[in-house]
């Protein structure tokens, strides 16, 4: 199966990428999703920010920006959530890339099962890469759930996730990583949202005392 083969190839690239991540985090890790090697996605150094809930949607281009969100619940000694967000337009381009189509052929308003599955797979690859790297640094185990996919307004997607944190906090801690293609074009944002207590565990594992 051609499509499946392509996905597997992408996964292999991700695995190789993880290898590289062991050597250095500093921004040069790459996932290749294309067979010809021209479609390369880079990952930036994570930025840490503590934000009030109300400000989070602004990071994503406003609360009513149309986005695709891929969400994972991560269990283990330091439970967290992962949210990978990209604009609907960019998501369409990535699906084009994965499905070997011409640019702009994917109708993001009307995705088929296989296209949704491709998006989720992309999320799997990216989050696995990220978690492997984090695991290397912290020596902690992170176990991601299956992906959940949401396509809608940025604010609406965030609501559902932030609500879990809402019972205990008014601020959320975000580890934000940008995924870029061809050096400058931002593909998407990747957020790690540690549950209360998890941050201490992660920082302690990293040898940071506070």
């Amino acid at each position, binding site marked *: 199966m051609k499509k499946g083969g392509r996905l597997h190839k992408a996964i292999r690239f991700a695995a190789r990428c993880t290898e590289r991540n062991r050597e250095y985090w500093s921004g040069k890790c790459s996932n290749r999703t294309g067979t010809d090697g021209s479609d390369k996605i880079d990952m930036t150094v994570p930025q840490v920010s503590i934000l009030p*809930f*109300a*400000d*989070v*949607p602004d990071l994503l281009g*406003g*609360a*009513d920006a*149309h986005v695709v969100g891929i*969400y994972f619940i991560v269990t283990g000694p330091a439970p967290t959530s992962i949210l990978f967000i990209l604009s609907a337009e960019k998501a369409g381009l990535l699906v084009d890339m994965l499905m070997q189509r011409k640019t702009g052929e994917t109708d993001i*308003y009307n995705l088929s099962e296989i296209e949704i599955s491709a998006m989720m797979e992309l999320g799997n690859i990216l989050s696995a890469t990220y978690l492997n790297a984090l695991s290397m640094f912290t020596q902690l185990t992170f176990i991601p*759930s*299956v992906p*959940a*996919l*949401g396509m*809608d*307004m*940025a*604010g*609406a*997607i*965030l*609501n*559902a996730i*932030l*609500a*879990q944190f*809402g*019972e*205990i*906090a*008014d601020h959320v801690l975000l580890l934000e990583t940008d995924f870029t293609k061809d050096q400058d074009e931002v593909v998407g944002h990747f957020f790690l949202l540690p549950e209360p207590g998890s941050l201490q565990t992660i920082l302690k594992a990293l040898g940071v005392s506070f």
Partner: protein
Amino acid sequence: MAKIIQVGMADLKMTRAPDRLMTAGLGSCIGICIYDRAIKLGSLAHIMLPSSLQAKNPENMAKFADSAIEVVIDMMLKNGANRSRLQAKIAGGAQMFRFSGESDIMKIGERNAIAVEENLQKHRIPLLARDTGGNYGRTITFDPETGDLLVRTIGHGERII
């Protein structure tokens, strides 16, 4: 000049016509509009959670259905509203993510909607219209002049309730 006042997540605002109130990207959250049509005074609360009672930090009153409604009513009465004239419209409470094993967290939208209705009932505020549920986000604009609530969505149409 009529303004459109933005209400953020876990936030609440009050205004008079001709200004309007808007909140963008309601997912599992709910936008509660309580207004007194006679004096054209309206409010919009963007709540995230059903109840402040289970919360470990209930300081931000606008975050919870029960406390937000209380604060709004208080604020409106202080600004000349008449309790018997208060009416409400609500929108939001969607379920944005589907996991194979559905957890409680993911049903937060539904729980929010129920809590809002119960609290409105408790304060005897008639709920004139609602646009809740589904699996899509909503951006809403409330006009205290007419009492119209404009609901916009991506791919699920636009309507005034």
